């Protein structure tokens, strides 16, 4: 059992490292989103060159975040991966269905304001978190 415990400890350390990496890349991507949104307005006065550089950096950080997420998924055990993939599937479905319906609300005059992408992102985030919690509870 000692060797197995050692290998499991290494496995757990890998998982923790992957989670930390994912958190750092996500943080960097969120920061670049804020810089892209507010930098043009408050820092470089809509200079196109700066905006393009920050946009490319933002996309590159997004791509890196996706790769780290894929690596994180690959290192989960099969039940953890199932819970995560189920939550991702539900989130994608809810995002698609709710997003299209929400976008139509203004067109059919049920709301007077323009639909915001932020609302959809928040809905998807809550859906993902709740799906993960339900998945974990189901297999406990």
């Amino acid at each position: 059992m000692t060797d197995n415990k050692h290998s499991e400890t290494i496995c757990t350390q890998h998982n923790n490292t992957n989670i930390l990496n994912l958190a750092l890349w996500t943080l960097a991507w969120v920061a670049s989103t804020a810089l892209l949104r507010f930098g043009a307005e408050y820092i470089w006065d809509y200079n196109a060159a700066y905006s393009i550089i920050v946009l490319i950096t933002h996309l590159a950080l997004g791509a890196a975040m996706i790769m780290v997420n894929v690596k994180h998924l690959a290192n989960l055990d099969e039940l953890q991966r199932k819970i995560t993939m189920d939550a991702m599937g539900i989130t994608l479905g809810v995002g698609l269905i709710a997003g299209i319906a929400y976008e139509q609300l203004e067109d059919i005059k049920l709301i007077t304001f323009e639909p915001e992408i932020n609302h959809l992102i928040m809905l998807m985030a809550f859906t993902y978190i709740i799906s993960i919690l339900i998945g974990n509870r189901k297999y406990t």
Partner: protein
Amino acid sequence: MKNRLKVLRAERDWTQADLANALAVSRQTANAIEKGKFDPSLPLAFKISRLFNLSVEEIFIDDEAS
């Protein structure tokens, strides 16, 4: 799918954590398999059978066959 993991584990005086460590999975996964809430993949089922020196059929009981 039912299984004999709890009995086999008890015979060896292993905890769920010991089993999880031996299979390189989380304790949650070992617990879910043992309770029959989650069916392991074929590679993991073979890993379990090697761990206990038994065939897969001696550990897992096919509900549809019974």
